[in-house]
């Protein structure tokens, strides 16, 4: 380890201690301060534009630093934004609204921690909404980490709305069946028998001893399926087997990377609706009137998008001005 690295690490640790123990909490920027911060950031980008036009591309690390700052600062700003609601998000909400209390909803958690910042907020909002509406939730995962993420989503929902914790009982109102390997083969087997695929729940309670599952043998006993998916196996597999073979209505919450790929399923009505990425989650929170992490994050998300757009514009302005000069 070089001397310079030791100094950087030490400074970072001191900085962290200062932030953790010496700064009064929570840190919040007023509207005026927020505006000043935004203007300052804008000026930095103007400076970058001028430098780039002069033919001096800024360094990689400066770009990283600017992205980091642009993502961090909005956490301390208290600006409220009007979140746009896309038709596919509204379809999910409308479909859930149509379900009468007591309906059995299968919630498939097909994601892992790396995708959690996108999918966990919508999963939490879904849990809050489902429990509030009296829907019975059967949880499972095609990804090993899925059931654990579901557990965390339920804990977050209970923390945000303590009244739910008193009202909701495991085994009666929701159950976590856990994970099974086999991707689409798991869905296929569930079409015949849930019990065959999940002989017991996550806590090794036998299938038959769980009251909620008393009359659930396969998809024909399920009213709706909500799939939170970060890739394969995920939404495509649910559509191909649960929807097209067993006629189960399925809606999905997808990571933004995956979302554009499932739009053909929306157009062909194989998929009821779609919550795409953080913005989809925020829109769902808005519709369910249960603001959560996605609503909080959307300001940072907006900043991030603007920063990338500005970087693309600066890069292209410089490219075209150089091209003109060459001519």
């Amino acid at each position, binding site marked *: 380890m070089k001397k310079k690295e030791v100094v*950087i*690490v030490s400074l970072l640790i001191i900085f*962290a201690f200062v*932030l*953790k123990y010496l700064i009064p*909490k*929570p*840190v919040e920027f007023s509207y005026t301060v927020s505006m000043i911060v935004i203007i300052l950031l804008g000026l930095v980008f103007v400076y970058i534009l001028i430098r780039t036009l002069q033919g001096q591309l800024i360094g990689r*690390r400066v770009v*990283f630093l600017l*992205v980091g700052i642009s*993502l*961090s600062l909005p*956490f*301390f700003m208290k600006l409220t934004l009007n979140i746009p609601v896309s038709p596919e998000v509204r379809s999910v909400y409308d479909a859930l609204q149509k379900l009468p209390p007591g309906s059995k909803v299968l919630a498939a958690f097909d994601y892992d921690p790396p*995708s*959690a*910042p*996108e999918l966990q907020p919508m999963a939490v909002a879904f849990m809050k909404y489902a429990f509030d509406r009296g829907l019975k939730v059967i949880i499972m995962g095609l990804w*090993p*980490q899925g059931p654990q993420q579901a557990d965390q989503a339920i804990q977050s929902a209970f923390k945000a709305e303590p009244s739910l914790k008193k009202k909701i009982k495991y085994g009666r109102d929701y159950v976590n069946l*856990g*994970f*099974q*390997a086999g991707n*689409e*083969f798991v869905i*296929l087997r569930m079409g015949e028998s849930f019990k065959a695929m*999940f*002989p*017991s729940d996550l806590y090794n309670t036998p299938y038959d001893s769980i009251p909620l599952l008393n009359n659930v043998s396969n998809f024909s006993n399920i009213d709706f399926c909500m799939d939170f998916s970060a890739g394969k196996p995920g939404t*495509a597999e649910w*559509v*191909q*087997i649960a*929807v*097209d*073979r067993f006629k189960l209505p399925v809606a999905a919450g997808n*990571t*933004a*990377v995956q*979302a*554009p*790929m499932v739009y*053909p399923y929306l*157009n*062909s*009505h*194989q998929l009821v609706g779609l919550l*795409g*990425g*953080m*913005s989809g989650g925020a829109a769902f929170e808005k519709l369910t009137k249960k603001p959560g*992490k996605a609503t909080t*994050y959307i300001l*940072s*998300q907006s900043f*991030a*998008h603007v920063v*990338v757009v500005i970087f693309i514009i600066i890069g292209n302005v410089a490219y075209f001005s150089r091209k003109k000069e060459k001519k």
Partner: protein
Amino acid sequence: MGFWGQFGVWLAALLTIGIISFLYKDNFLYKACEAIFVGISAGYWFIVYYWDNLYKKFYLQVTNHDLTSWERIIPWVGFILGVMMLSRLFEKIGWLSRWPLAFIVGATAGLYMMIYFVSNAMAQVASTIIPVFIGDWATIIANFFIVAGTFCGLVYFFFSKEHKGAFGLASRVGIWFLMITFGASFGYTVMSRMSLMIGRLDFLFGTWLGMIK
């Protein structure tokens, strides 16, 4: 939050910063975090597959005396094929792993052949062959674009004929649609990647440093 809770948060923060330090340059802290990630992930998968699959889907089945003896014998076939899979670790008997591999390939091919044909080919073709000139002008344009875009996109992927004349024009239009598709995907990818970083920053500023509500 007790000692282990606090210690956990500090450890998670250290590991997060360790990975982020890669942005400065490749360094020992990043490499150490990377190695821990590989080891922990491997162990995580090892354990989860043991309890959720081998224990539940095999052990509980073969020891369940409520089932008929036939039902208790059947899972052994899967188990034996699975053990044969491990033969790949040993050079001399590695060929045995071809049996379970053939099983997986055969099952996947058999299933995929139909589900992809039905859901991703036929259902999509059926949803593309739609009456174009109905509804208001916005609907007509949208329907026309979907029909023309899908057709031209497919023409672009058809390499058995030279892309010349009308066919070439259709292929070129197909490229335009694909470019818009890739642009939309890029936009969504940016959204996705930024969201992930926002999640980590929320942990650092919120859970760790307690600076935000």
